[in-house]
């Protein structure tokens, strides 16, 4: 259904909505390799590419080749996307390390599945550490956005392209198999709504009027390599200052805070409702940018709530960042499921009730 402002409203699967968003966002090239639960991204793109002349969609022989094609295309100044799921993202870590050092923009989508190893094709958040702590070798970060709805699978494509190009650092959309597969109503922005700023550093052929452009991650002199590292760190400090995004629900009167991202944040909303029906005042903090992490919001909440409960579909990864932010001033608990299992609102409620009942929280 087309709206007067050029927006289309449709019922779409997360993976397909993301692919459509990428085309509308002016993506110029996509490289990928099939893997469940995100194969619909490349399927959708190959099907709809003819509607967008000039857009390159290429199925590579591996994720390793694909990420290096992304390196080449991004270095040549194109707006590029790559998508995969956990095992494939592991294969890309070398390339991502090189791309952060060479300061190349690109959008990487991880529709996570349960691991480790070949694991399962069911949804997971087990790649949090890999996504937000670097993942490959060396001191670097990815800009990481965690959608919690099909609408955000669309919106974050635009946000991530904007951020990756502004900071010349790869950005990642960290979704999961459920977000990729579920259908929801989405509003799709019009084509051409995301302008591309110039990339004077790109390798497009050297005219007589400028020095040659070199895209490289090799800085053999340690003094120079340290300078590059300082540049990267300065960029990360700016990101931490300017680009943190976080949603807070019912935190105004909360005595307890749930902290969850992506799909689990939606399950937490239901758990929060159940807890409030029982008279426990629970609020929810949902980090939207996982890197930069909303540490300040959590630190501030520590002055208000009695305890935190972090909920994740993993063994407890983001909880470490919550603990760092809280810095020992309040208890930080964890509950979660692993290996492709999704926690239920009742399980989360049971954890909240156990925390409420802890002797350390019983005031004299």
């Amino acid at each position, binding site marked *: 259904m087309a709206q007067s402002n050029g927006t289309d409203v449709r019922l779409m699967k997360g993976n397909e909505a993301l692919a459509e968003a990428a085309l509308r966002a002016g993506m110029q090239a996509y490289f990928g390799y099939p893997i469940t639960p995100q194969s619909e991204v490349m399927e959708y793109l190959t099907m709809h590419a003819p509607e967008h002349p000039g857009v390159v969609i290429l199925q590579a022989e591996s994720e390793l080749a694909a990420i*290096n*094609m992304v*390196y*080449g295309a991004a*270095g040549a100044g194109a707006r590029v996307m790559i998508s995969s799921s956990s095992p494939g993202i592991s294969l890309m870590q070398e390339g991502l390390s090189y791309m952060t050092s060479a300061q190349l923009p690109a959008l990487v989508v991880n529709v996570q599945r349960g691991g480790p190893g070949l694991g399962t094709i069911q949804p997971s958040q087990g790649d949090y550490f890999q996504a937000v702590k670097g993942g490959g070798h060396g001191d670097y970060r990815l800009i990481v956005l965690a959608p919690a709805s099909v609408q955000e699978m669309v919106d974050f494509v635009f946000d991530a392209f904007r951020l990756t190009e502004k900071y010349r650092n790869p950005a990642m959309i960290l979704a999961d198999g459920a977000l990729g597969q579920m259908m929801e109503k989405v509003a799709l922005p019009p084509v051409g709504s995301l302008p591309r700023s110039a990339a004077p550093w790109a*390798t497009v052929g050297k*005219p007589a009027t400028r020095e040659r452009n070199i895209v490289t991650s*090799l800085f053999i002199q340690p003094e120079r390599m340290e300078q590059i590292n300082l540049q990267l760190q300065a960029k990360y400090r700016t990101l931490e200052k300017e680009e943190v995004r976080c949603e807070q629900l019912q935190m105004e009167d909360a005595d307890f805070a749930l902290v969850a991202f992506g799909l689990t944040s939606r399950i937490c909303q239901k758990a929060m409702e159940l807890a409030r029906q029982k008279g426990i005042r629970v609020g929810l903090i949902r980090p939207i940018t996982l890197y930069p992490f909303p540490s300040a919001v959590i630190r501030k909440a520590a002055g208000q709530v009695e305890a935190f409960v972090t909920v994740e579909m993993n063994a407890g990864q983001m909880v470490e960042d919550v603990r760092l932010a809280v810095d020992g001033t309040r208890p930080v608990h964890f509950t979660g499921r692993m290996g492709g299992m999704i926690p239920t609102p009742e399980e989360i409620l049971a954890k909240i009730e156990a925390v409420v009942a802890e002797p350390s929280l019983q005031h004299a």
Partner: protein
Amino acid sequence: MKEPDVIEGMEVVYRKPQTLTATPMHYCPGCSHGVVHKILMEVVDEMGIQDKTVGVAPVGCSVFAYDYMNVDMQEAAHGRASAVATGIRRVLPDTYVFAYQGDGDLAAIGTGETVHTVNRGENILMVFINNGIYGMTGGQMAPTSLLGMKTSTSPYGREAAVNGYPLRITELLAQLPGAYYVTRQSVHTTAAVRKCKKAIEASFRYQTEKRGTCFIEVVANCPSGWKMTPNEANDWLEKNMFPYYPIGDIKAPKQ
């Protein structure tokens, strides 16, 4: 101070190509890399395509190729030059793109990318420097090291039963329909340099026809890795490398 272009009373009959920078090369004396860099850039100069050329450097001794070649360049991860070149060429379809790789880079760690790049018939030039050894890391065995060849990781000589056979990847690639022009050259004599340059020229021209991948293997020396003087290395090359890696076109377009 700008150097005088011409010494008074003398005529310029030969000069460094404009597309080579003034940076002194770090290659060992007699090494093939420098010669191949020079003829590659001479072709770019003579064809007047500096503003339409993008190169990809490998990981290996020629990792700093972009310090010497005055064209836009990208430095790829070890083995991934042809994937990087694919990415460039796909988004810049009217650009001349070349990837420059050693044997460890192209025929060991990057074999998958190499085979699939050629199989897709990417319209790029792949220059493959086969010196039968890992030069940069200090002379370890390469996939192309000859049987019996002593290297730092085959100190008693390469043994087929342990290390397999020297890989003739160029013959393998020539089988692929995506390969348009596949040739094996060398640069150890003036005549060989001229022939190799012709092959490079032809490959750049073929790129505009968009008919598939051009692949030039250069059977090269590595005096340091082989522990020989440059002259000894060139003799050894003729005697030992050529019988296993015969020079000439393997797949040439019908004229």
